[in-house]
């Protein structure tokens, strides 16, 4: 095996190494360093080893209790978000026009929510849902529905979920639409000839051909919803009680509210790890779906 040895390549790679080292590796190592220590005022640090990690995974401690509870809420939230946004996004993409000027109109309308900054979205819904002056809140209450996201847990969850669906379903829809557009006409014609029903066309052609974009959509929506911070923070502030306090909100409370850098560092490392692992599982499962097993129904 004669491979060309070219040491000059190092000169091209080194700057990248340097940039990555300063932008990612060093900050990460700082966090690792913090996670092993306890901090007090005046920059006093005490070695704590893996103590914080032990506490994190032990629900009987304060830190562990808060972390595991918020993690549970977060997983539930992501599951609900995926269960709503992915099918809804597919339905929206399927019902979009395939050609003509309406395509542009639909695309612009769909893209609008994606362009709005997170905290603005939060503010919009915070006001929209208020029972006294918000259009949604006022209307619901005058219809006799006792809706108040500040005091009722269910209402708070519903508001945060509907807000996220409003904000992000477009992304899934646009990705799916791109996937659908790339299917050659011959497939639809062949399906017509073969007498396939609408449902059979979806199952046999559209869904398998959207496999790739759905993978991207699921990954993006999982990561985003699992890391969600701004919108629920603006709308509910994590309340009522702790009912909408997700991991990121808990993390900020610990790091900036209590200034427990050690605990916060340990938490953020575990948080990061969970996201990596779950994404890896999604990726592996979805790329193998339909290629190895003889029969696999549905993708998402």
């Amino acid at each position, binding site marked *: 095996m004669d491979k060309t040895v070219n040491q000059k390549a190092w000169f091209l790679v080194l700057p990248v190494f340097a940039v990555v080292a300063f932008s990612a590796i060093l900050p990460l190592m700082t966090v690792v360093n913090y996670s092993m220590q306890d901090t007090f005022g005046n920059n006093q640090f005490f070695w704590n080893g893996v103590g914080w990690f032990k506490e994190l995974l032990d629900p009987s401690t304060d830190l562990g209790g808060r972390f595991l509870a918020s993690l549970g809420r977060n997983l539930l939230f992501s599951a609900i978000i995926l269960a709503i946004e992915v099918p809804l996004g597919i339905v929206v993409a399927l019902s979009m026009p395939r050609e003509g000027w309406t395509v542009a109109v639909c695309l612009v309308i769909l893209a609008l929510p994606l362009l709005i900054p997170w905290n603005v979205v939060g503010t919009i819904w915070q006001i929209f849902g208020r029972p006294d002056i918000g259009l949604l809140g006022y209307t619901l209450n005058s219809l006799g529905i006792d809706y108040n996201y500040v005091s009722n847990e269910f209402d708070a969850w519903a508001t945060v979920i509907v807000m996220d669906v409003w904000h992000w379903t477009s992304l899934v829809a646009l990705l799916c639409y791109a996937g659908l557009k790339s299917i050659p006409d011959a497939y639809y014609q062949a399906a017509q*000839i073969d007498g396939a029903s609408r449902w059979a066309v979806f199952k046999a052609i559209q869904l398998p051909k959207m496999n790739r974009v759905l993978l991207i959509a699921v990954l993006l929506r999982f990561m985003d919803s699992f890391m969600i911070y701004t919108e629920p923070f603006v709308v509910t502030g994590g309340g009522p009680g702790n009912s909408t306090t997700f991991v990121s909100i808990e993390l900020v409370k610990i790091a900036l509210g209590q200034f427990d850098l050690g605990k916060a560092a340990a938490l953020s490392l575990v948080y990061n790890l969970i996201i990596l692992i779950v994404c890896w599982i999604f990726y592996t499962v979805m790329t193998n779906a339909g290629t190895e097993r003889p029969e696999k129904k549905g993708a998402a």
Partner: protein
Amino acid sequence: MARIDLVDLAHSYGGNDAPAESFALKPVTMTWRQGGAYALLGPSGCGKTTLLNLISGIVTPSRGKILFDGADITPLSTQKRNIAQVFQFPVIYDTMTVGQNLAFPLQNRGVPKAEVEARVRQIADLLDLTFYLDRKATRLTADAKQKISLGRGLVRSDVAAVLFDEPLTVIDPELKWQLRSKLKALHRELDLTMIYVTHDQTEALTFADTVVVMHDGRVVQSGTPAELFDKPAHTFVGYFIGSPGMNIVPAAVSGHEARVDGHIIGLHRNYGVLPAGAKIEIGVRPEFLHVAAPASGLLSAAIERIDDLGRVRFARVRVGDAKFSARVPPGFSVPDNMVGLVFDPAHVHVYADSRLVEGVA
């Protein structure tokens, strides 16, 4: 299984009000026999795929009617037409096995399970796909995929016709021969009406009993391969079919004589008076024209080059502005510059404005 009649069928992608010349398919009336093997032959853009899609219902005609066994099916959707079609590029349902792919058209129509299984086995057997039946269709080669597409077209026993839209484009030349003879065999075995679109004359002539030649949205001739070869109804058929194509040169024709470059060529039939102002040409296939040593009674031509096709040689020669291809008789040593041309009068045809003129014997 049905007889298919096209009545004044025409289509324009620009709508019914588009100018007549822009129609992708100009009005055509013809009948397709039940059980026949037809080929639609013509260059790209001649309207052959449009005609096919009209029959299958993928495209709705601007004008005219399509009858299956006398019943007007023009407004019916593809699903209700009972037509099978195989496309240029393989269409495979990715999530299904080969067997499920083949069974798909039958299952969609609610055929009983046992019957589906039997039919799938039969078709897989005919196409040598039995070995792959339980495999995923996605991982197969392009030609295996196209065989699956063919199989899905053939699997329904009750179809009015099976339409093929250049189905062998993606297949290796080696396999093309095999698949083509396979299709021919399937045609005999299954007694289906088959319509085969292609721009490849070899494919058309070997597959079909009746070849329909299309040019610029029109059907210019429909006949057996022999008819197309011996008596092209249109100059286009003359040079599109045959290799090299027919020699078509301007000439002055009167009675039993054609005059090319001042030289008189005898004709078998009497052409009397031809329409005034029409463009008159004579056509003769290179197979019925050979070169000889220059002699006084022969049209003399300048040699441009010799094409050696292995078993035969053709001389490319020039008479004035007119170019001819002519057979070189075996053993004839071609002179460097001038030769004489010997015509076979029985195979010299006369065309007025590109259309064959029937002479009087």
